[in-house]
């Protein structure tokens, strides 16, 4: 009894010494010289962003837009302020706080803000507002909305998926039957059709009328993905926000090595959990880039009220690199995709058919 106590104490002391020395070691660095820093020179401009409930680490539009803000901070030297909303009731006060804090520009992302930014923009003409992925019929002078013609990029992804598919079947499903979702699906389908036409192939697209019904039912979404895989579909494009993860999980769990996912909105290779082994490519809205560009415009006094639409031409949309899947795609595919891209930009192909 006594003995064990003593041992305990001595190990405790040893641990303490170890811990303390670790602390001392990490604390021994030399002090930095005053002044002088590597980043871009700071300028007198404050760009601000308010997130919705998802927060800046939501793996989706908040995070992607936020990266644009960080890019502006490091490359343009603007000051930034950011506020996460814990619930939708925090969003209004957060936006107001940003106005009061003297922000030159306030960025919000997503539909959850509803009319909040437009009301704030009308009440505060001195502050510019950028709204990502949501639109209004009429824009005040000091507001810019960023939306994306996703069908163009989905067309290229559909072509790629058809070229990749070993079973000759690809699939897609949506969260809800709304234009922002179905645009992806139609573009994807048209891309597959184009491949069939050019190559004389017969790749089928399944699930054009499959919808989860909401953006939160993970059980149903995963069931849909598994049903696809069981019926020989080997590429799935889920257009259902956070539910896309269920398709990635289903693909990673499936026995067939060739199964793959076409991710949407962001680069699934980085954003999806386990995306590096499952994501063939992604239909990307370049939200970070377009947010950065909006800030850059304003810094250069070129801010204009407009409803910006991201396209292949202005690089507001695009498809992600193929990473590990590069070697499994047919030679010459990249050339064909580049040619298709040119044709879409030139208006010779309508990605919505």
């Amino acid at each position, binding site marked *: 009894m006594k003995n064990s106590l003593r041992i305990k104490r001595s190990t405790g002391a040893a641990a303490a010494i170890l811990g303390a020395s670790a602390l001392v070691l990490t604390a021994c660095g030399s*002090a930095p010289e005053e002044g002088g820093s590597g980043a871009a020179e700071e300028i007198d401009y404050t760009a601000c962003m308010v997130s919705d409930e998802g927060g800046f680490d939501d793996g989706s539009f908040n995070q992607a837009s936020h990266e644009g803000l960080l890019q502006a901070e490091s490359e343009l030297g603007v000051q930034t302020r*950011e506020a996460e909303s814990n*619930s*939708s009731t925090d969003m209004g*006060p957060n936006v107001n706080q940003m106005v009061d804090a003297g922000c030159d520009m306030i960025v919000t992302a997503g539909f*959850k803000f509803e009319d909040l930014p437009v009301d704030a923009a009308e009440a505060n003409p001195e502050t510019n507002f950028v709204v990502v992925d949501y639109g209004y019929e009429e824009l005040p002078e000091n507001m810019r909305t960023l939306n994306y013609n996703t069908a163009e990029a989905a067309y290229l992804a559909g072509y790629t998926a058809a070229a990749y598919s070993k079973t000759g079947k690809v699939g897609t499903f949506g969260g809800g039957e709304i234009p922002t979702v179905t645009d992806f699906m139609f573009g994807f389908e048209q891309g597959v059709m184009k491949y069939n036409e050019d190559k004389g192939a017969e790749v089928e697209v399944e699930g054009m009328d499959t919808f989860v019904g909401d953006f939160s039912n993970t059980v149903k979404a995963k069931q849909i993905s598994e049903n696809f895989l069981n019926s020989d579909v080997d590429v799935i494009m889920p257009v259902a926000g956070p539910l896309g993860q269920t398709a990635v999980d289903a693909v990673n769990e499936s026995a067939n090595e060739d199964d793959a996912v076409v991710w949407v909105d962001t680069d699934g290779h980085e954003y999806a959990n386990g995306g590096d082994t499952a994501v063939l490519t992604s239909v990307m809205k370049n939200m970070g880039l377009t947010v950065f560009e909006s800030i850059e415009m304003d810094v250069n006094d070129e801010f204009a009220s407009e409803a910006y639409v991201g396209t292949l031409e202005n690089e507001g949309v695009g498809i992600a690199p193929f990473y590990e899947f590069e070697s499994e795609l047919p030679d010459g595919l990249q050339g064909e995709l580049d040619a298709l891209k040119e044709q879409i930009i030139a208006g010779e192909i309508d990605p919505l058919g």
Partner: protein
Amino acid sequence: MSPETPSFIDRLRASGAVVSVLAIVAAFIVGGILIAATDEKTTSATTYFFARPLDTLAAAWNAAANSYAAMFRGAVFNYDASTFTAMIKPLTETLTYATPLLTASLGVAVAFRAGLFNIGAQGQLILGAMFATWIGFTLDLAWPVHLLLVILGSILGGALWGGLVGWIKARTGAHEVILTIMLNYVALNLLAYLLNTPVLQRPGSTNPVSPQVNGSAMYPELLGDEFRLHLGFLVAVAATALVWWLMNRSTLGFEIKAVGSNRHAARTAGINTFKVTVLAMVIAGALAGMAGAAQVNGTERFLTESVAASIGFDAITVALLGRSNPIGVFFAALLFGAFRAGGVTMQVATGTPIDIVLVVQSLIVLFIAAPPLVRSIFGLGQRKKRKPRTPGRDAAVAATAGGDK
């Protein structure tokens, strides 16, 4: 409460008011340390702590002081602002945030007094908000009548949800903690469901949001357009007074307290414990339901899935901090309203994550729930009754305890 279980609530209530205050102080000190520890400048300064130790201490002090200063500017008085309106706006924001919290907390407090641990304010609030919203956008009436109906509707919704718990508890003895927690989920999912059906969904929208309620169903703003503070605050204050009267002057209040102290003794003394249990939960639900109307018809104007935010759960903390006493709850709700309002400013002004506010709130509960801990931190000695210390001495003790940490 039955004699075989020395109640948790009883123990909480038994600890002195000074413990509440000290718990807040201790939570702020720990919160300050956390702010400093997560601050970028501080952490980078610690890497050369031995080369220039003062850097670390200065950075830590700055981080904590700036954050709390920003919180004060956001919650009480903005001394940096240029106009009078902007200066006093924080205080009105605090009151606005406190409004739904106040009635919801009173509800929790009344249930506490009856010996019922009501975790269900969240669900009761949601039911109240659903009733308030529905009445608010479907009916077309003149102002005071419409608003009155909305308030009554929210009371009815919350009372139903709370009363259901009271009835099952009194009838079957099922534990109210389980019941209320589960009914929170039922309420939340019911809300999510109805927001996706035409009952509550905005026509033409694919998002889960309700239509806006009519202007005639809104609490009017008290101080004009510049401020969000609305009439609901005065209603909540009136509710506080009513609850005070109920608990301290009415027969029902006496019965509630009697049942809360000892259910068996109360029954032996001829009190109808069935009736008292149900009524206590009806009142608790009604008060929480009113908070739903304060949210929708006071500030938000429409219903979303997160209408309740974390009010229902904060209400438990507030009721504990206020020691289930209406007056205490009133001030505790103001404090938490200040946390909410100040937290927003703190996040925007200093980049301190708003989660710190949550940590401070949670620490307060922790410290209140463990009076001996607070007593030993502040060197108060165990229980039973020293003479009250002079405030100056207390402050000195608090300061040294803070310095040690």
